[in-house]
C-alpha cells in the first residue's frame, strides 16, 4: 500500500468522521419528522473509533457490529444513500428496508451486521475469522461492542475460542462510559475492559479516541498481528456518546456539564485543528463541509424519493 502524506491521510479520515456526524444529525432530524421509526442509536461523538479502526482494513476483511452501526457502516465505505434509505425503511436500503437502523448489512463490503442482541455477535465475528483461517486467507475480522456488554457470556466464549484457535480477530470494546443509563462502574467490577483479555492469554490495548490517527495506528498494530500471525486482540477504546442511548432516552443519568466537558476532546474538532496547523486553509475545510452537506442532503432526498418494499418481500428471504 502506498503511504499517504500525513495531511492527506488526516484529511481523508476527517472527511469520513464529518460524514458520519452530519449523517447522524440528519437521521435524528428525520426521526423527529417521523420518517424513521423503531430504535435509532446515534454514533455522534464516537466517530474516530470506527473511522480510525476501519482505515486499516482491506477488501477481504470483515466487520461485525451492534445496533449502533451507522458509523461503522459509513466508515467501511457503505453508501450514505443506501444507509439513509434503510433508516427510512425503503427498498433501496442496505437491507431492503427489512432490517432498519440496527441491522445494516452489505455483503460486498463484508459488513455482516448490525446485530441487536448483544454478545452473541462476538462469536459470530469469531466464526467469520475462523472461515478466513480455514480458507488460508490473510483476512481480518473486526468486531465492535459496547463496554456494557462485556459481562455477557457470548463475549467471553468468543474470546476463549478466538484465543484457543488463534483466530484473526480484533474485538473493539467502545467504552462510551454508559450502558443505556448505567455507568461502567455499575456494570463491571473493573474499570479497564481490556483486562478481560488476560485470562484468555490474548493481546490487548487501550486508548482514547480524541486523535483519529492514533486510533488508526493502534488498531493497525492489532490488525497486523491478526493478519500476520493469526492472533486475536482485545482493544478498549475510550470514547463518549453525546446523544442519548437511543432517541427515546432523555439522558437524566448524566449532567449537561459532563457532556459539554467531553465535547472538548471531540475528534473532529481536533482533526480540524491539526489540519489547520498543517497548513490546510479554512476555505479548504469549508469546502469539505459543503461537500458533505450536499452528500447527506442527497442521501436524504434519495431515501425520501425511494419506493417502499412490496408485500412480497415479507416472506421472500425467510429461506435461501
Amino acid at each position, binding site marked *: 500500500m502506498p503511504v499517504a502524506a500525513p495531511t492527506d491521510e488526516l484529511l481523508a479520515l476527517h472527511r469520513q468522521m464529518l460524514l458520519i456526524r452530519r449523517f447522524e444529525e440528519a437521521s435524528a432530524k428525520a426521526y423527529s419528522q417521523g420518517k424513521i*421509526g*423503531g*430504535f435509532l442509536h446515534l454514533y455522534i461523538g464516537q466517530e474516530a473509533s470506527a473511522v480510525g479502526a476501519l482505515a486499516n482494513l482491506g477488501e477481504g476483511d470483515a466487520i461485525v457490529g451492534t445496533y449502533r452501526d451507522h458509523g461503522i457502516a459509513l466508515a467501511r465505505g457503505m453508501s450514505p444513500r443506501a444507509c439513509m434509505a434503510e433508516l427510512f*425503511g*425503503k427498498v433501496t436500503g442496505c*437491507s431492503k*428496508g*427489512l*432490517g*432498519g*437502523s*440496527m*441491522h445494516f448489512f452489505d455483503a460486498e463490503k463484508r459488513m455482516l451486521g448490525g*446485530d*441487536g*442482541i*448483544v*454478545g*452473541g455477535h462476538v462469536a459470530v465475528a469469531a466464526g467469520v475469522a475462523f472461515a478466513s483461517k480455514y480458507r488460508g486467507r490473510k483476512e481480518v475480522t473486526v468486531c465492535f461492542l459496547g463496554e*456494557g*456488554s462485556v*459481562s*455477557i*457470556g*457470548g463475549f467471553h466464549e468468543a474470546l476463549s475460542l478466538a484465543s484457543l484457535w488463534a483466530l484473526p480477530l480484533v474485538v473493539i470494546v467502545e467504552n462510551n462510559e454508559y*450502558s*443505556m*443509563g*448505567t455507568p461502567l462502574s*455499575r*456494570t*463491571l467490577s473493573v474499570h479497564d475492559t481490556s483486562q478481560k483479555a488476560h485470562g484468555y492469554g490474548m493481546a490487548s490495548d487501550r486508548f482514547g479516541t480524541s486523535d483519529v490517527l492514533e486510533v488508526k495506528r493502534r488498531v493497525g498494530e492489532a490488525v497486523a498481528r491478526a493478519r500476520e500471525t493469526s492472533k486475536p486482540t482485545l482493544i478498549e477504546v475510550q470514547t463518549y456518546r453525546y446523544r442519548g442511548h437511543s432517541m427515546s432516552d432523555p439522558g437524566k*443519568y448524566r449532567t449537561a456539564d459532563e457532556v459539554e466537558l467531553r465535547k472538548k476532546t471531540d475528534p473532529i474538532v481536533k482533526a480540524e485543528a491539526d489540519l489547520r496547523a498543517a497548513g490546510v486553509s479554512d476555505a479548504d475545510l469549508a469546502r469539505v463541509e459543503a461537500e458533505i452537506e450536499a452528500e447527506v442532503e442527497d442521501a436524504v432526498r434519495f431515501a425520501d424519493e425511494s419506493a*417502499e*418494499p412490496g*408485500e412480497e*418481500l*415479507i*416472506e421472500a428471504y*425467510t429461506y435461501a
Partner: protein
Amino acid sequence: MRELRYREALREAIAEEMERDDRVFLMGEEVGYYQGAYKVSEGLLERFGTRRVVDTPITEEGFAGVGVGAAMVGLRPIIEFMTWNFSAVAFDQIINHAAKIRQMSGGQFSCPIVFRGPNGAARQTGAQHSQCWEAFYTHIPGLKVVAPATVADAKGLLKSAIRDDNPVLVLEDERLYGLKGEVPDGDAVVPIGVSAQRRDGDAVTIVTWGKMLHMVLPACELLAKEGVECAVIDLRSLRPLDLGPTLASIEKTGRALVVQEAWPYGGVGAEVVDRIQRDAFGALKGPVLRVTGRDASMPYNKHLEDLTIPSVDTVVRGVRAVLAW
C-alpha cells in the same frame, strides 16, 4: 375502582407484594436508577432501596440463574427482561433449570420465580426485537405462562405470579404499557388458570390473549353493525389453559376463531384448536380457523410490519372465513 395505566398496575403489584413479603425482590437491566426501560419500576428503587431493586449488567443468563438459585432456597425473585427477546440468552436457565428443579429433586426444591417483560412486536423494532415467546415457553412442563390483556389483569395476574410456588412467566406488551383501565381496590388478585369472557355473541367464538384482545374487540363492534355478534374469550393464562368458557360458548355458536399475534406454526393457537376439535367436535359447524402473525421474521418497514401483525381488518376477515363454512 381506580383508573391506572397498565405499567402502573404492574408497578402496584410489585410494590404491594414487596411490601407484604420481604422475600420478594426485583432484578433486571435498568430497573433501578434508570426507573425501568419502560418505566414499569419507576420509583421502586427510591422506595425499597438497592437491596431489593437490583440493577444488573447485560447478563441475562447470569441474572436469570441467580434468580433460580435464590428461589430454590426460598426467596421470591421477580426477574425483568428488558424485552422477552433477550430471554433467548437465558433460555437454558428458564428451561433446563427453573422448569425442572422441582421434578428432578423429587419435589424437595421448588422454584418460586417470576420472569416478566414485554412480549411481541413494539413498533418497527425489527426481526430480533419483535418476537412472541408464548409458543416456546408454554411447551415446557413446569412453567406457567400468563399474558394479561387488561390493566386489572396486569395487576392481578402479576400478584398471583409472585405468590405462586412455581416459575411463572408474565408476558406483558410494550404497546399496552400506556393503556388505561379500571383496577379493583384492595388485593385485586386474579387467579392463574382462569379465562375471561369479554363479550357475548352467538355467531362465532373468538379466542385470544394479550394485545390481540384490542384488535378483536373493535373488530367485533364492526361486525355487530352487520348483525354478527361474536363472543370473545380472553385466555389470560396460556399454561395452564382454561377452555371451559370457550367450550361453553362454542356449544352456542358452533364456530370458533383463534386470534394470535404469534407465528402460525405450532404454538398456543394450535393447542387451542386441537382441544376444541376434541372436546367440542359435536358442536362444530365448520373448522376452527386461526388468524396469526405472518410466517416470517418481522420486517422493519412500517407498512410491512402492519401487514405482518394481525389487525382489526384481518380479524374481521377471519370471522367471515369462519362463517363462510
